[in-house]
């Protein structure tokens, strides 16, 4: 209980002045206060000893480094450059169908594609996760558009948003060719100019200050230099 200083007379500083029996001269902390402080400190240490590990245990996965997974999806000849071929990919191993996701693949087409070309872009792999709130989109061939069933998000052939609520183009996966097979690797996000960013969750815009408002997780980054 706080007591205002002007109402109570100031206590003498040392314990001797307060005529506490057995006090040493110049002692400023009573043994009772010392013991109280010790007990509280011991209690706080005991609390921390089980609370901090428990919190760390629960937060652990946030900081866990994940290995880069590459999955072969078929020979080069399977994928034309003017239409998409759907393939099923295991995004998260160990949980059956829940960990699988559909990805749309085609060969890079210099006439259509505006994404910068490098070793990972010989094939274009578009994620089916809508960038509004994460529903699965479907490629409708008749209109050459990706369409989301939930809230009407529409994306063009390149995966750029052309209508509805999504905040950025569809995410993509790194691709590479090994032994004549197309392999699909980690996911990355793109902004409206198809510039690559570390993977983000749906609903997080990447234009303007977006990348700063929605920081990438420190453990899953895009491949350096891409």
């Amino acid at each position, binding site marked *: 209980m706080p007591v205002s200083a002007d109402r109570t007379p100031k206590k003498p500083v040392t314990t001797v002045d307060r005529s506490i029996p057995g006090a040493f001269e110049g002692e400023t902390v009573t043994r009772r206060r010392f013991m109280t402080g010790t007990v509280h400190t011991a209690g706080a240490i005991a609390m921390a000893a089980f609370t901090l590990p428990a919190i760390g245990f*629960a*937060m652990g*996965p*946030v900081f*866990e480094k*994940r290995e880069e997974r590459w999955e072969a999806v078929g020979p080069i000849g399977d994928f034309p450059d003017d239409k998409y071929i759907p393939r099923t990919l295991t*995004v*998260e191993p*160990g*949980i*059956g169908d*829940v*960990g699988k996701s559909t990805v749309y693949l085609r060969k890079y087409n210099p006439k259509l594609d505006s994404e910068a070309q490098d070793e990972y872009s010989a094939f274009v792999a578009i994620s089916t996760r809508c960038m*509004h*709130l*994460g*529903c699965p989109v479907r490629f409708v061939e008749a209109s050459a558009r990706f369409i989301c069933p*939930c809230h009407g998000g529409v994306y063009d052939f390149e995966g750029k948003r052309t209508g509805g609520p999504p905040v950025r183009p569809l995410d993509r996966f790194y691709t590479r060719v090994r032994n004549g097979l197309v392999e699909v690797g980690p996911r990355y996000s793109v902004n409206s100019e198809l510039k690559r960013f570390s*993977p*983000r*969750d*749906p*609903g*997080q815009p990447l234009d303007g200050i977006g990348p700063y*408002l*929605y*920081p*990438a*997780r420190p*453990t*899953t980054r895009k491949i350096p230099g891409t």
Partner: protein
Amino acid sequence: MAKLTPPLPGALRPKPKRPSENGNGATTPKDKLAEVGVSAVDWVDERTSLSAGARWLMFRKVPKGTNWFYTLGSATMFAFLSQAVTGVFLAMYYDPSATRAYESVRHITNEVFLGEFVRGMHKWGSTVMVILVFLHMARTFFFGAYKYPRELNWIIGVVLLLLTLFMSFTGYLLPFDQRSFWATTVALAINGTGPLIGPYLNDFLRAGPEFGVTTLTRFYALHMLVLPGIIAALIGAHLYLVARLGTTAPPWMKADISPELRRDEA
């Protein structure tokens, strides 16, 4: 404390014996049995003083005009208790693993005796609880019962409302069918749109960057251990404040002002 304790209501006070009963002072077996009960209660009460607390909690004065709207809080509490009991029994059959959760829920619904009924109680009861929380909140708001000195109780109530909604959110995933999986995916994406902390909060809830092996167990632990514990503790605090501060009269009741005071005002 003794002074503050309200007296027992008349119906509960021991009555003196009629002269015609046992006029000769003999005790019947019924009297002896009653005596055993009374002494057992007295034995506990002498060591705990529980009866004073029980009287303080239960035999409070309530204002004139108290009506059925004042039962919405208790109704919400009973909805919570019903959720707790049905939830505990559902946990006996439910298996929170991503590959077997759906199968165990199907087993509860189709094969366990009364399984469909208990699961239905829990499922529909959750909706009932949310509705009751909002009705209780509306009653408090429209009756002005959130005003001094009951602001803290309003704040605790708001926290309880949020916890109730978080219970609904974590419970929705548990059947692990298509609807609950996609609803949770969407809800997590909504959560992730919170600037700066959204992405990190999502990683915590999902236990990683993607919906993974331990997401379901994490939701299950939050749903059946963490949140109910906090809710039960806060309900205790909420009830303590209700008992301590008393309830308000409805706004249409006029205060009874004594004639002297009225003359002073004029």
